[in-house]
């Protein structure tokens, strides 16, 4: 119970982030939210869920939902390769995984080098971004992991879905149109 959802706890020498890539952009997640990083394992698809949730995996006996981050950010999809990883995140005692292209490294960024989210010019929705980290010339997009799988959104999706499930079952294709 030691890890209480800390909000960018900045120590003297900065916060540590795990960085990864989607396409040619680099993203960072606070290391305290990362439980582990695993290779891509077989994913079981689950019906009636938004497209960005790829399904569930078995993480040592626990059923864990997995999000495809490209789909979540509405980026172009890419083939999964042997460098594709699942980063297992733990947010408020909830565990879920995100699929990313490659995991790069762990870096320290001091508070001085973290700038607020620009209101434009980003390829992904700004609500997912907590700030921009600068390391020399590199820019790392720091993500707000809480927003990746937020309750309200999931609830809305579910409700919206409940209204349409019946149609979907009878004629799947028509519903899609």
């Amino acid at each position, binding site marked *: 119970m030691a890890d209480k959802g800390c909000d960018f706890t900045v120590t003297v020498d900065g916060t540590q982030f795990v960085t990864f890539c989607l396409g040619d952009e680099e993203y960072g997640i606070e290391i305290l939210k990362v439980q582990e990083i695993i290779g891509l394992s077989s994913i*079981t698809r689950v019906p009636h869920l938004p497209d960005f949730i790829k399904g569930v995996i078995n993480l040592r006996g626990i059923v864990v939902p997995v999000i495809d981050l490209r789909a979540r950010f509405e980026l172009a999809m890419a083939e999964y390769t042997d460098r594709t990883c699942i980063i297992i995140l733990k947010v408020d005692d909830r565990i879920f995984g995100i699929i990313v292209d490659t995991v790069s490294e762990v870096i320290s960024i001091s508070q001085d080098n973290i700038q607020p989210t620009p209101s434009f010019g980003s390829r992904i929705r700004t609500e997912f971004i907590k700030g921009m980290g600068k390391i020399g010339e590199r820019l790392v997009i720091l993500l707000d992991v809480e927003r990746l799988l937020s309750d309200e959104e999931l609830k809305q999706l579910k409700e919206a879905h409940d209204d349409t499930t019946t149609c979907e079952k009878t004629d799947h294709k028509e519903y899609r149109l």
Partner: protein
Amino acid sequence: MSTDGMEEIIKEFIVEAKELIDGVEQNLITLEKNPDGMDVLNDIFRSVHTIKGAAGFLAFEEVIEVTHSAEDLLNELRKGRLPVTADIMDLLLEVVDAIKELIGDIEKGEREKKHNISPLIERLRVALESKPVEDTDDKKSPPKAKVKAPPQEAREDKGGRETEHYIRVDIGRIDSVMDLAGELVLIRNRLTNLASRLHEQYGDIGVVGDVDSAISELNVITTDLQLAVMKMRMQPIEKVLSKFPRMVRDIARQRGKEVELIIRGEDTELDKTVIEEIGDPLVHIIRNAIDHGIEPSDERDEQGKPRKGTITITACQEGRDILISIEDDGRGINTERIREKAIKLGLVSQKDVEKMRERELMELIFSPGFSTAERTDDISGRGVGMDVVKTNVSRINGSIFIDSLPGKGTKITIRVPLTLAIIHTLTVEAGGELYAIPLTIVIENKRIEEEEIKTVNGNEVINLRDEIIRVLRLDNLIGKGSENRCSKYIVVVGAGEKRLGLLVDRLHGQEEIVMKSMGDYMKGIQGVAGACITGSGRVVLVLDVGKLIWGMEGIGVNMDKLVV
């Protein structure tokens, strides 16, 4: 930190107080039956005192006040200065309820909430002062021989026995041990696999044989471990049954009937989840038994039965199931009345009714709607909300049976699985995905050709021995149809009277699985009850067929609207 520590202490207080107050409640009932039970009385006193002490430490003023007044009254009872009467018992039981409520509110975090406890305190005081009847000779003659109780030292040994043998463990921790045990099984499977490959490559020489024996040992240990963890989740059914003496007493007193409750096999162990679910149906059945089954004493007299009616609850284990029976010696179920009612409600036709056997007739009381008509009159037998009982029982994969002899009594037997954690399923494949269907709801499997599926009114159906059954293509659930469209299997499943045919590509066979929660994110997905992890480490979804059928009904409604 300090607030956390306090929270912890309060939590502990709540758990302990609840346990104690449950004990007090049971003891009060015992005491009423046997007013001279000094040990029981001491026990009650001690428990109330402990609660008072703990509440005092945490400054829960209202709890202290109530327990303090109750303690005074109990002390008088203990010293024999007041007799144990039904009225005093009522009062003390009210105290129990009040304390329960107070603790309940503390648990909910409504610590500041004010309760109107003064009337109760006042009544306790009045009861305390009602003794003057004996008061006059109190000083001279010590009343009766009851006074032998040592009043003070009894408190000392509180709880010592329990702390030695039990520890309280968070259920989450046990579940995680269970998960890990499951993982161990998977690794064992992999090792077994590797060992057989070693065999193929190197034959049965030296080390290979050693590996084999090590694996078989591992095999035994993992199985034992799984069993042991499962046992950790087991609790005696007493946890539920212990509430009934009080309930039976209260209802019987309200109705002016005399009822004795006998409980057997209360140490039978059940999984925690089953324990939690079984309470409500039992309450319902027992309430019915008192309300409708047991006759008023005078009527019993006339029939030559003992004035006091008896309800017997028996629990026992039978293989992988637990049988719980509730038996009363009341008037039994009048099948004639069921017959009339069923025809009146249009549940069955006159012609069918004549063909039905007694047992089938009794099953009718489980039909939805049967109850409402019955509720207004108490003349005939059962029927109050029995459909709810049945639904509740089937939710935990249980079944329910009725036996009744008019004039002699009724016996209702509930059969529930020992645990909900392990369920037997049929694994099927559709659209490249595996699904598990609980075996309890599978009616039959049949190989069918694509041509046998007809479309009626936009719905796909099959004709199975003259019964039209709706078909759900399981591969559409994920949204990816499978190309292979020749011969397939239909799995006919049923919930209640409803039937549904699930069209699948392949049957994989039966499997015992451990249900896993899908976590908060995935809770309540239509048609999915949960997930399990197979021997190969894959996650397989367990279908919630009731919901699937319900979903199909929804379409039916839409279709009708379209037609109109």
